[in-house]
């Protein structure tokens, strides 16, 4: 086990980034024109990075597997984006955003990175508004804010329940502008399948044109992976169907360490599973917890009656309901962080209080605030001093519709139930992965010249991410961090001429990709790719999901090894290599997920503590909260790939100089 260097600049936390920016080497404009950068992924991190770098004068190539860069999964983010603007005059500051993020991550994130994130958060909002993002506004014309979990201020900016869409389309329009100007070359429907290293530095990628099936070689002085998280390892998640770990995994197998793979986020408010045909799970934004109250019946017999359809939840009296988050965490109530809310839901359902047929659902109920918060407000505005219950509901309905309309519509589409009249049923589901490629302060992986941005890296959220912070991090990395930090590397590359893609390293890499594809077709087995993906997902969900233990993880590792064998002996990949072939794409991704799944379980097994989303049943307080072991695990686990199923563990010590670490409490 060796230590690794995070290259955090010296000096005070508050001035570190400012000083670093002023001292980082620069590349002059005429040299930038000769430097090529490959960006893989076109979500918030990828689009903003590519755009900003192209504006600076670098030659940029962007790759995405979707048919357009506008479809990257950032688009699906609903609730909002945090920024320490303090527009609400409620005491917010850069320090508070920094503090909340470190605490929310259960003291497993790097201080320097998180402080930088909090510092640039304000610029992101300015940038987005200037590029035409239509955030929600108040009547005075200024921006509106709401609250998210794990905070006591209102710092979340939003555009109804479509914040990710609006931010991504903003970043995408900037990217399209650079494409139109000829500064960015776009490769849509292209999937990166290998990184190319030459003399210890990353020098390009192999990509497959998903329409023709042809393999292509692309050189870059640097390569940026902005390829998102690996939540789809669980098969069922709130990720888009094609979200995958392949780009990050190929990089990992070529020398990039993988950090904290066991840190996965299970989001508390998702629409519950309805049947075994289910292909994905749908999130109901955390913003709903501003006005929705979470409860289950106090008595088991009531829960059972509801499950059997004999009792309508609307008829259950107030005193017979258990608002368990408000009960257990009075200071934060329904707005506790996601890991805490998810575990609490699981605890109630495991104890027999679940409210749908499967017993795995709790209520998210808007009736109270619809009537008594918003209904009353509107009644007062209308000068109705004695409103009826029906009037209150009617008035409140309009306000709720304006705030969350698209989410309510989506819920109704999927479940067939009207959430304006009945409480929503929700259950936790896989949503985000805090783990990812290990990066230093410059966002560079352990391979020189290879960077990871956004959800693809591990750096800012520790063991649990706070709501509305993913969009912030993706755009911070792309707009405001990488344009500076990449100079530290590229300033030394100005004399390196473009390397011909006939170089043997490119030839070799392409041959490897080709042989993997041939190997997949050659199996000619009996089971579709999805069959293996579903089985992998179940193993991981059961053993490396919301609660983990030594026995389960050990069993999971051997099951995954066996599954890997079975996959390579029995998968059936239809169609041809030189064709548009979604089955082939899936097969490659699932093969990588299987390998990653094993590492996740291994990481969860090695980390003998609970922290954030990593909850080990053998490490909990008497009240069932996560119990950290700071003496032994105040570190980042970074795994070095040796061969399939075999890794070396490296550690990065985490140093807290500005925050006093404590048992996390939201009570």
């Amino acid at each position: 086990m060796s230590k690794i260097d995070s290259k955090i600049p010296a000096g005070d936390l508050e001035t570190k980034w400012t000083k670093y920016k002023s001292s980082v080497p620069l590349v002059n404009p005429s040299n930038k024109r000769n430097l090529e950068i490959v960006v893989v992924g076109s979500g918030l991190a990828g689009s903003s990075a590519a755009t900003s770098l192209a504006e600076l004068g670098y030659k940029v190539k962007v790759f995405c597997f979707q048919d357009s860069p506008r479809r990257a999964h950032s688009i699906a983010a609903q609730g909002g984006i945090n920024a320490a603007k303090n527009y609400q005059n409620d005491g917010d500051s850069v320090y508070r955003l920094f503090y909340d993020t470190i605490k929310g991550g259960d003291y497993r994130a790097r201080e320097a990175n998180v402080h930088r994130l909090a510092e640039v958060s304000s610029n992101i909002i300015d940038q987005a508004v200037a590029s035409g993002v239509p955030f929600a506004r108040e009547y005075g014309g200024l921006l509106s804010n709401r609250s998210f979990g794990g905070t006591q201020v209102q710092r979340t900016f939003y555009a109804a329940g479509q914040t990710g869409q609006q931010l991504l389309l903003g970043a995408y329009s900037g990217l399209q502008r650079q494409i139109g100007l000829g500064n960015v070359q776009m490769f849509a429907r292209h999937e990166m399948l290998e990184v190319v290293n030459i003399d210890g530095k990353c020098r390009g990628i192999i990509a497959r044109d998903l329409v023709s099936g042809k393999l292509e070689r692309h050189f870059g002085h640097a390569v940026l992976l902005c390829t998102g998280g690996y939540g789809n390892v669980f098969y069922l998640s709130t990720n888009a169907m094609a979200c995958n770990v392949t780009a990050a995994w190929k990089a990992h197998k070529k020398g990039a360490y993988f950090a904290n793979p066991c840190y996965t986020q299970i989001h508390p408010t998702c629409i519950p599973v309805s049947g075994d045909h289910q292909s994905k799970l749908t999130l109901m934004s955390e913003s709903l917890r501003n006005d929705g109250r979470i409860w289950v019946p106090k008595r088991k017999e009531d829960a059972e009656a509801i499950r059997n359809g004999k009792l309508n939840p609307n008829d259950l009296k107030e005193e017979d309901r258990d608002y368990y988050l408000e009960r257990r965490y009075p200071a934060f109530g329904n707005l506790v962080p996601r890991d805490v809310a998810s575990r609490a839901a699981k605890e109630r359902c495991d104890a027999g209080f679940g409210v749908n047929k499967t017993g795995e659902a709790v209520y998210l109920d808007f009736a109270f605030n619809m009537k008594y918060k918003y209904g009353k407000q509107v009644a007062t505005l209308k000068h109705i001093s004695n409103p009826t219950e029906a009037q209150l509901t009617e008035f409140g309905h309009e306000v709720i519709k304006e705030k969350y309309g698209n989410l309510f519509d989506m819920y109704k589409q999927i479940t067939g139930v009207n959430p304006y009249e009945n409480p929503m049923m929700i259950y936790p589901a896989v949503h985000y992965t805090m783990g990812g490629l290990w990066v230093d302060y410059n966002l560079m992986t352990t391979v020189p010249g290879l960077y990871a941005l956004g959800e693809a890296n591990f750096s800012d959220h520790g063991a649990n991410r706070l709501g509305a912070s993913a969009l912030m991090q993706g755009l911070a990395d792309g707009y405001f961090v990488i344009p500076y930090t990449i100079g530290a590397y590229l300033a030394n590359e100005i004399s390196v001429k473009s390397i011909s893609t006939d170089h043997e390293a490119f030839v070799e890499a392409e041959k490897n990709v080709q042989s993997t594809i041939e190997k997949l077709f050659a199996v000619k087995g009996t089971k579709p790719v999805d069959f293996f993906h579903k089985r992998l997902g179940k193993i991981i969900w059961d053993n490396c999901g919301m609660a983990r233990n030594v026995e389960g993880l050990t069993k999971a590792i051997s099951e995954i090894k066996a599954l890997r064998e079975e996959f390579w002996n029995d998968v059936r990949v239809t169609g041809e290599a030189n064709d548009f072939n979604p089955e082939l794409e899936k097969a490659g991704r699932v093969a990588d997920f299987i390998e990653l799944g094993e590492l996740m379980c291994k990481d969860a097994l090695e980390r003998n503590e609970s922290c954030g989303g990593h909850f080990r049943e053998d490490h909990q307080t008497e009240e069932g909260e996560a119990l950290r072991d700071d003496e032994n695990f105040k570190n980042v686990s970074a795994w070095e790939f040796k061969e399939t199923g075999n890794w070396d563990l490296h550690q990065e010590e985490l140093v807290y100089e500005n925050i006093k670490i404590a048992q996390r409490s939201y009570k």
Partner: protein
Amino acid sequence: MSGNMNINLKVWRQKNGKSQGKLVDYKVENVSPDMSFLEMFDVLNDRLINEGKDEPIAFDHDCREGICGSCSMYINGRPHGPNQGVTTCQLHMRSFKDNDTIVVEPWRSAAFPVIKDLATNRSAFDRIIASGGFISINTGNAQDANNLPIPKGDADDSFAAAACIGCGACVAACKNSSAMLFVSAKVSQLALLPQGAPERATRVLNMVAQMDAEGFGSCTNTGACEAECPKQISLTNIARLNREYYKAQLFSNEG
């Protein structure tokens, strides 16, 4: 599988852009009303792979929550099927009856050539955005976001236009294959904001020129686009586009 519906599908199969396509019949049994339309295709594809006779049906899809704009099926003569305001992925089988026959085709437009089966090439939309669907501001130049108040009504209207997901249903619905609703949504979003003002005239002229160059048809104000748009983008955006366009032609130096 726990469903009780049987569905007869007629699906457009086409090997690639150069070959001829045809409708092929498939029967899908035990369909659950809780399934989404795409999940029914997953089940069918699983079966096709298991049977080993026919390649699975290619179709574009990704987020499956109605926001990425990938899915694009022309169902019984309507983009995204019979329901209003939803994408194909948010269409559930409870909207159909047992023994229904459903015809599924790709988007039909010369500007959206078929890639394979139900998947088409919609990159023309990206090129239209690249021609002017942006505000020319470089990273790091922005002033404080609250320095420029925007009336709530304008911000709301801009947002309503910006909700477009670029799926192309408007083009597929239009008898002329016009892209006016798509283009007008972006023009409106930016025309309604003060940030969009400096490039207002050039933007609309360039985007319309690119739209024409891509081979989309003319708008004859039929309104099928608005009726079929999964995000219910309003036809008034087209009126605004026309106004912006004429204004730019008459009064700007860019014409």
